């Protein structure tokens, strides 16, 4: 069987991705509608509101329409980029999400960068020193980082660096006194970014170590050494590029998860990102925002998976892009 050309491959992935997203959206609606209580009740206040009033709100919000109608209408709208209107926030969902996007990207991006940089570095060192004390120490660190609950780690960091040492702020993104310049944001970013990066870093250390250990026993590594290449050059120029593929797969796999996966970290550090928005929307029964966030999260996962496939092909000369 002849392998697909790249364009056909990409098109196929895109189409199946879109079908998947439509299914996820439908499932989200079923879940949200099946739950007791709805937006109308939250809006009307405490239980025991006038039934006629509730019915009026439901008609306004089209909550009285049959579920398939609601789903179809939502899919049609969101395909055009319109995610609906949040009655609770009093503004379009797109604005509610857009207002948090920057903070989320900043946090997730920093955490990602830290995890990739530290994870690959430690993984390469561990593979180079395989079986030694340094390797064992790195293994213990990554196992711990993989097992610590992020919200507890966040608490400990706050207790140490904010409460005791007063080095860093305990939460938020800017100082209340309005001095919110670049340095101020970085100051606030440090603790949540480190906390969020640890789990991913632990995974990357393990994957890098395994892949590098496999690469280091290959013939081309011996050949490079025989030619007299220095050890750093052997590690970084020869072995690492071949070990990067599984690392890229793990990284892109987490790309889709990290935005909303930050719910816990953003809650501990009161970071005004999408995770925090998601948590608030869940509590407030803000269905349109919630549906929008779930759709966004699913879109990111699907996009990240396609990206992973593309990079996987790009990094392997045998399936190189044509």
């Amino acid at each position, binding site marked *: 069987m002849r392998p697909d050309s790249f364009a056909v491959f990409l098109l196929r992935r895109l189409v199946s991705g879109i079908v998947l997203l439509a299914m996820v959206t439908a499932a989200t609606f079923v879940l949200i509608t099946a739950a007791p209580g709805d937006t109308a009740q939250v809006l009307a206040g405490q239980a025991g509101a006038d039934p006629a009033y509730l019915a009026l709100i439901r008609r306004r919000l089209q909550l009285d329409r049959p579920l398939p109608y609601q789903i179809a209408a939502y899919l049609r709208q969101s395909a055009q980029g319109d995610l609906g209107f949040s009655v609770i926030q009093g503004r379009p969902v797109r604005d509610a999400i857009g207002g948090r996007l920057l903070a989320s990207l900043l946090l997730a991006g920093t955490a990602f960068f830290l995890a990739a940089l530290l994870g690959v570095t430690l993984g390469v060192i561990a593979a180079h020193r395989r079986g030694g004390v340094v390797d064992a120490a790195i293994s213990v660190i990554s196992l711990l980082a*993989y097992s610590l609950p992020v*919200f507890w780690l966040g608490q400990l960091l706050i*207790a140490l660096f904010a409460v005791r040492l007063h080095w860093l702020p305990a939460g938020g993104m800017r100082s209340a006194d309005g001095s919110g310049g670049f340095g101020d944001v970085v100051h606030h970013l440090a603790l949540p970014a480190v906390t969020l990066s640890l789990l991913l870093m632990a*995974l990357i250390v393990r994957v890098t170590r395994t892949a590098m250990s496999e690469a280091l026993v290959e013939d081309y590594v011996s050949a490079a050494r025989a030619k007299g290449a220095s050890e750093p050059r052997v590690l970084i120029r020869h072995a690492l590029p071949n070990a990067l593929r599984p690392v890229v797969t793990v990284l892109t796999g987490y790309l889709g*998860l990290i935005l909303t996966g930050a*719910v816990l970290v953003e809650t501990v550090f009161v970071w005004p990102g999408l995770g925090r928005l998601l948590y608030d929307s869940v509590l407030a029964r803000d269905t349109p925002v919630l549906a929008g966030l779930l759709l966004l*999260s699913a879109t990111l*996962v699907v996009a990240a998976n396609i990206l992973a496939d593309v990079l996987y092909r790009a990094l392997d000369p045998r399936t190189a892009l044509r």
Partner: protein
Amino acid sequence: MVGGLFLLAMIGATVFAALAAGDPFQPSETILRSPSRLHPLGTDELGRDILSRILSGAATTLKIAIVPPAVAAAVGTLVGLLAGYYGGLLDEVLLKLMEFTLVVPRFLIALVAAAFFGGHLWLVGLVLAATFWPSTARLVRAETISLREREFVAASRSLGASDGWILSRHLLLLVAPVVAVNSSFQAGQAALIEAGLAFLGVGDRNVVSWGAMLADAQSYLQVGWWTSVFPGIALASMVLALNLLGDGLADTWNVRGREAARG
């Protein structure tokens, strides 16, 4: 195997707690006391004994760490064996389902479900089991596909063995290590997810949860470090034990570990 020993100790402590320890819900006048002989791990903001609460919370964590992965292991193994062995429609459906459950993060599904339907422990368990089994099934399916063409299967068949015999006597035993390793990591994840939900305040309020203890502690970090440190150590060591168990099993049976089992 350190992990396994630790787990046994935890289970022992839980049983002991059920028999002997004080009431984890009993408030008292002595609020936010640092560790003392009467309260070895101190008391919380309502004067409840933290040690009793940690021991009681262990039962919650153990339930959620054991039951959903076990259910997922049973269902996932069955479906994975059948899909891998027979292929066809079941296989197609399984793959689609896999894709579907991987698209929305498990924690988000659990969060929405817990917030909307009330975070009863059984509901959280149900969501976890429902989202764990497809990944178990995928692993078992892959193993089964690589095993079904082996010679011993052909040999067994030529001796007159039925499909049922081959599946239950041969393939089941051979996929068991992969499932066990995967389940250990899922157990660690389950413990973290339950604690995370409780931390966010959408967990089960009728049982003691380490996550909820940590959420309460958030407001008292400055005056009572013990309210956060001890429940955190309990949770972290439980998850660590489960991950160590997974790593140990993976080494013993030469199974690809966490990277493969993730998801």
